[in-house]
């Protein structure tokens, strides 16, 4: 009995030794390593899945360590592509220069941020950006706790807020667009990185208000009420939907999402093939998974920018809030 089990263990060790050796010599035709934001992940996954049909000898793998975590790996040269739900930051650009990493920035889709309340809430007909700022700014912490403090005609009911957790790209963008400064927000609200938790929270709280990606509203329409947003007090109230988001009418709560490609990796033919495939198919695939695609010419402009190996970020000097991608890309070919 003992003898047999010893043999088994020996065989297993041999098996693994052979595996280790064989994997050292194994040649792949190509490997593409992608990591980063969880909100860009579904689109990249869809592209990778379709690309597998086309080029099955190229191994594309995607991780989800968040926009910040993805950039950290990207700037150490550990991955080829970084999924990002916000533009690369100043300090990250400095890090890139220090490490000698050059990159191409490619916008791939839009994400509209939905402002939602419970269906039981009958008094909210629209909301202005100024009112959102009153709700969410850091100074409101502990002070703005009732709906009638935001707008006098709203009832004297407690205001319960639900929003993105501090490490998500959604949080960075929302605070920048509403409060004027990334990561400046009150802290006394229910925060979660998991949008499904926020959906549950707002759906079951008649006094609640929350923000998250439009696709989470679309999948839970019957449990939530969408609130249209006015950019200024006398502007028109706009509902986020596929067309208002795609053509930049729903502002300032429409954000572009990006992939960042390492220029060294981009020189490999199969990487070029992959990016080309990504930009050709992003529009159809984004729609399929419930995301909002960019206007078609933006993909074309991005591809020619990629082919010219135009390095650097568009947002070093301009704000990402309310950006017109077509103009910005045309200027920077």
């Amino acid at each position, binding site marked *: 009995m003992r003898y047999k089990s010893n043999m088994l263990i020996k065989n297993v060790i041999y098996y693994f030794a052979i*595996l280790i050796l064989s994997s050292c010599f194994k040649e792949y035709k190509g490997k593409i390593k992608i990591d980063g934001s969880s909100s860009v992940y579904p689109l990249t*996954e869809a592209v990778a899945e379709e690309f597998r049909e086309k080029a099955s000898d190229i191994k594309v793998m*995607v*991780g989800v360590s968040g926009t910040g975590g993805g950039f950290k790996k990207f700037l150490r040269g550990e991955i080829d592509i970084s999924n990002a739900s916000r533009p690369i930051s100043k300090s990250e650009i400095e890090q890139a220069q220090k490490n000698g990493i050059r990159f191409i920035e490619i916008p791939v889709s839009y994400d509209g941020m939905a402002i939602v309340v419970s269906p039981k809430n009958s008094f909210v007909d629209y909301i202005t950006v100024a009112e959102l700022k009153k709700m969410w700014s850091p100074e409101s912490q502990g002070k703005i706790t009732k709906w009638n403090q935001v707008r006098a005609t709203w009832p004297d009911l407690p205001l319960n807020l639900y929003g993105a957790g501090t490490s998500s790209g959604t949080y960075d963008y929302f605070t920048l667009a509403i409060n004027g400064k990334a990561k400046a927000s009150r802290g006394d609200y229910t925060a979660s990185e*998991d949008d499904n938790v926020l959906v549950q929270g707002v759906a079951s709280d008649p006094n609640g208000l929350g923000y998250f990606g439009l696709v989470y509203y679309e999948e839970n329409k019957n449990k939530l009420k969408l609130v249209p947003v006015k950019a200024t007090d006398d502007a028109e109230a706009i509902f986020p939907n596929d067309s208002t988001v795609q053509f930049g009418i729903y502002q300032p709560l429409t954000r572009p999402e990006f992939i960042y490609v390492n220029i060294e990796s981009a020189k490999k033919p199969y990487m070029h093939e992959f990016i080309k495939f990504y930009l050709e198919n992003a529009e159809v695939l984004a729609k399929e998974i419930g995301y909002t695609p960019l206007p078609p010419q933006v993909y074309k402009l991005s591809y020619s920018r990629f082919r010219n190996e135009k390095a650097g970020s568009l947002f070093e000097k301009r704000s990402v809030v309310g950006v017109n991608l077509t103009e910005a890309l045309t200027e920077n070919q």
Partner: protein
Amino acid sequence: MIKRIKTNKARIKDQLFKYFAMLCTGLCLLVLALLLIDIISKGIGRINWSFFSNLPSRHFDESGIYTALIGMVSLLFLTVLIAMPIGIMAAIYLQEYGTKNRFARIVEINIANLAGVPSVIYGILGLQIFVRIAGFGNSILAGALTLALLIMPIVIVATREAIKAVPNSLREASFGMGATKWQTTRNVVIPAAWGGILTGVILSVSRAIGETAPLIVVGALVYVPFIPEGPLDQYTTLPIQIFNWTSRPQQGFITNAAAGIIVLLAFTFLLNGIAIWLRNRWNNKVKF
């Protein structure tokens, strides 16, 4: 009279305590049952052959756990391969060879403390040492080494307990026949303690099986449409796949997550079952 009342009171207290304890047990079981019913009712319909054989996909009804399951099994296999010999030998040293001095006591306390360190800390350690310094990258080997660190204290503690349970008379008999310490340990102590050691190892694996946080830190991926062909390949595991599915907007992915949880639970159950079976088998075989 007074004395009788007192005994009555004591008896009532005794009964009350018994019911209270029963209530506590019942609550635990109730919570567990609710969780199980919820998960099984959500996910059982999704479990079919294609769920096991499909690659990850954007279509929830075509998405499967093939690579995640193989990734998890190879990861655990490699983890045991690393943690078991080192853990068992460390325990043998501490129990059979080590002298009981101040140093040994410090080592002992530290091992006990290590068992309580949050798993993500091991992840950060693994990221620096195995992924970056050793240069294994986001490979299955780096993940296995990290998990091996995580379960090592449990293996050591369990092995020591098992060795401690071997009666001294057996050792003395062996010494009496002229055996050396190594011969005694190899031929008497370890075979007698083997059931306990294996049980400890398997239970530690069933702890490692659900770990997500340290693996995300050391770079387990989510979308891996190929099975690892060697320890230096990239991988994904079932808990990470489940974690990803629960955060997706479409309800279908939530169902997938529930089905994944059922598979994971079945795995844990199987491992614990094997541990109990081994213990019983060895207890019958080895009698002191």
